[in-house]
Structure formats: C-alpha cells, structure tokens
C-alpha cells in the first residue's frame, strides 16, 4: 500500500463521514459546513487523479463562492427544526425502499458488461511539466468549441432570467443616483446670506443699567 492509496482512503473516509453528516446534522448551518468539507475533500480526490485544474476550480467556485452564499441564506433562515423532523419515522420505510431501488439500479448498470467499464484503463501518469490548464483550454476551444459556447449561452440566459424574475420595483425603494450626487454643487444645497453677525443694540445705556443692577 503506497502513500497515495493511504491518502485516498483517508480522504474517502472523511468524504463519506461529511456527506452523512450533511443529511443527519440537526442544525442546517452545521449541515452546510459539512457540505463545504465534502466539496473540499473531493477536490483532494481530483488532485490524486492529477486533475489539478478541476480540483482548484471546485474549491474556488463551490467552496469559495456558491457555499458562502448558501451559508448566507441558511444562517438567516428561521426554521422550526421540530416541525421539519415530524413524520420522519413514518416516511422512512417508503423513502428507504426508493433509495435501495435506486442504489440497486445503479449497481446493475455499473456491473453489466455492456457498460464496458473494464475497457477504461487507469490514467497514464502525466509528465512532470504537463499543464492541465493548457490541455483543457486547447480541447475546449478547438474540439468542443460549439458545446462550450452553447453552455455559456445557456448560463447567460439563466442569469438574465433570474435577474428579470427578481427585479421588481419596490415602493419603499430608497436608491440614490450617484451621478446626480456627484453633480451636486454647493449652490444647490446651501444659500449664503450676507448679514451682520449681530444686531446693533438699540439703546447703548442698557449695558450700564445691567451693571448697576449687579
């Protein structure tokens, strides 16, 4: 058993534990953090397969951005956990059966000779100076150019649709227009009035009178 095999089993153990905790953790924030751990560990698996670009991108996109927003939402939820767990035991037999059937089906497909899984060789070790990124870029922009562009267009449409669906004008919107703010000059806000600092006292004797009273 060499070093890589040991790393693989350690990572797998962490991954399975984290994935189980994602669905069993009582607190949704804990569950989301375990999902982060699961993503991070599977990035380690990809590194073992010498796919360093995919591994780093998984961390960058899923751990660094998607899960942060996920956590952001989950933390602000006000969920009654008791209510969520209601009927867990009642629904378990049905859900368990469905899950078992799905696992069985997947196992059948993978084990059948028609899947030809045995035809795949283990990946040949890459040369020390081989660049994952360059190779991937070359493939994406030559062989798979059309699917790549199509995928980007689909993503763009999704983004525009999401923004269009959620953009509603609110009545109590207090947005300011920074352009107008910058253009404001002093004269628009302040009027300077020329006047004496104080009025001349009507009777100069009053000061003396005050002194006499004291």
């Amino acid at each position, binding site marked *: 058993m060499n070093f890589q095999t040991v790393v693989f089993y350690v990572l797998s153990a962490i991954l399975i534990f984290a994935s189980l905790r994602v669905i069993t953790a009582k607190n949704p*924030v804990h569950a989301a953090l375990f999902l982060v751990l699961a993503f991070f560990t599977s990035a380690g698996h990809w590194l073992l397969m010498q796919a360093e*670009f995919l591994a780093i991108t998984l961390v*960058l996109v899923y751990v*660094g951005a998607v899960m*942060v927003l996920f956590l952001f939402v989950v933390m602000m939820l006000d969920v009654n956990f008791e209510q969520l767990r209601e009927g867990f035991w009642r629904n378990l037999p049905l859900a368990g059966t469905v899950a078992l059937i799905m696992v069985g089906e997947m196992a059948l497909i993978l084990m059948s000779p028609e899947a030809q899984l045995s035809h795949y060789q283990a990946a040949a070790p890459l040369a020390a100076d081989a660049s994952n*990124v360059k190779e991937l870029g070359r493939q994406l922009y030559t062989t798979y150019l059309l699917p790549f562009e199509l995928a980007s267009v689909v993503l763009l449409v999704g983004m525009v649709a999401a923004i269009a669906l959620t953009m509603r004008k609110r009545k109590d919107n207090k947005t300011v227009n920074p352009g107008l703010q910058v253009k404001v000059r002093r004269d628009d806000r302040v009027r300077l009035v020329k006047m004496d600092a104080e009025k001349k006292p009507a009777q100069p004797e009053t000061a003396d009178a005050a002194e006499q009273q004291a």
Partner: protein
Amino acid sequence: MELLQNLLGLEAGLTVWTVLKIVAIVAPMMITVAYLTLAERKVIGWIQLRIGPNRVGPRGLLQPLADGVKLLMKEIILPTASNKSLFLIGPVLSIMPALVAWAVVPFTDHLVLSNIDASLLFVMAITSMGVYGVIVAGWASNSKYAFLGAMRSAAQIVSYEIAMGCALVGVLMVSGSLNLVAIVQQQAHGMAGGSLFSWNWLPLFPMFLVYLISGVAETNRAPFDVAEGESEIVAGFHVEYSGMAFAVFFLAEYANMILVAAMTAIMFLGGWLSPFPASWGFLGASGFGWLAVKMAFVLYCFLWFRATFPRYRYDQIMRLGWKVFIPVTLVWLLVVGAWMMSPLTLWH
C-alpha cells in the same frame, strides 16, 4: 537536504526538510505581521501629527511584543449562548488560508516552497476560503453585532472576488501562464527591455488599480471595513472574541495584507526584478530585496488609505464592486485581447 536524507532516510529526510522550509517562511512572516502593526500605528500617528507608540523599548520598537504578551495572558471568554465548537473553529478557519497560500508564493526565480503549475489559481482558491472564518465566527457568537458583521463581510468578499478574478485574467492572458514564477519572468522582457515600464502595471493599469482596491476590500481594511465598523457595529464579527482568539483574527488580517502586497508586487510590479538596467551593478541586480521593497510600498499604501479615506457606505461598496470594477475589467480584457492580436502587441 542530502545530509538530512542520509541521516533519516529518503522520505523522512524530505519531510523534515519541507517542514524546515515552511518554518523559514512562516516565522519571518509572523515577525513581519508583528512589526506591520507597529508600522501601522506609527505611520497613522505621523499622518495625524501624533507620535504613536514610543514607550516600550527604544522608540517603541518592542511594542508588538508587549501587545502579544498581553493578549496571551488574557482569558478567552466563551459566551454561554454561543455555538462552542464553531466559535473555536472560526479563528482557525480564518488564519489557515492566510498561511497556506504562502506555499506557492515565489520569492526569487528558485526560492519557492512549491512551484506548482497553477499557482495563481491555487492562491485564489485558498484565499477565497478566508471568508468562512468571518462568517462562522459571526454566526457562532450568537450576537447581533457579530452576525451583522459576518453578513456584510460575506457579501462584500464574494463581490470583490469577482472583480479580482477578472483583473487576474488580464495578467494570465499577457503572460500565458498560471505559474507565478513564469508571470514574473514574462515581465522581464518586453518593449522597454525589462525595466520599470515593461512590467504589467503599465499596459494593465486599470486592472492594477482594480486589483489593488479589491485587495483592500478583500482584507476588510479601511475604507472597506464595514465588517468591523467600530462606530457602527462595535467590532463586527469578532466582537465576542477576547485574548488569543481575537489575536488570531488580527494575525490573519495582517497576514492577508502581506499576501495581497506580495501578489500585487509579483503580478503587476515585476516581482523580484530590478527597476534599473542590469549594468547598474548592485541596484540593477534582481533579487528578494526588490520584492521586499515593492511589498513594503504596497503595504504603505494600505496604511495610507486607512488614514486618508472615510468608511464607505454599504450600498456604495456594492455599487463600486459590481457596477464599476467588473465592467472596467471586462472592457479592458477586450482591449488587451485585441491589443495582443494586433501588430502593436507588446507580448510575444
């Protein structure tokens, strides 16, 4: 290294050698962090016509040690209503990425712990995890101010990471590599023959500015320090932390500052290259000294910004990130792409 491998065997020797190299990077960095705090207080003091700390040691030079000892002696208070485990994991999650990213930062052509192929992506991926420390700490504290700080920080860091990433795309377009050593070496030749004006900061000037400002925002420094905002939400996400647990957040912030300074120097300011022609002898030789000078300059800018600008309003931060920086970088990406394809190209 051969000595260690002879003593301990092939694999154990390599492990010990690597650990020694890690110590050789982390220990000087911790000292730099300590003296960066002193420099910050001194510089801001001078800018505000004060003296700054001058009591501990000659000219206040031992102040960081005194601060460290004080923080070590203080009790770490665990709030009763907090989520204990996450409360303790928070500072760890915050300092870990700040240290791990240094594994791939090169100091000269050969002086680098791990010269991996995609080191630029690695740094981005690891630093993007720093936000978890802030969010987890803010949530686990079970305090309204801490939670507000965490929410602000999450939104801010995610927004500015996009602008930062787009700025870096420009750098890797002109260098044709994700490797930090190759990025510096590419800046050594160009129109101006490897001097000051062939470095990336000039042709990629808008991206240089976007990266520098996003770097300030990513490290939650003033004027983007809404996550802490003493005058609004007390101390933000670390309001419930005391003693060493607080100090770890502090260390992480300063380690991240130094990291951003190093990345700016490497990607835009020519890294360890000398700004003078090679015939100038000592001044013309490139080496770690020049990288240190450039990092010190960027760090000084961080302190300067803090002493100069008032804190941004929250909606202004979001507007600047999404509506100004991202369009600027996207437009400049097109410009650089066209430039590289045209006969006027600077990059071969």
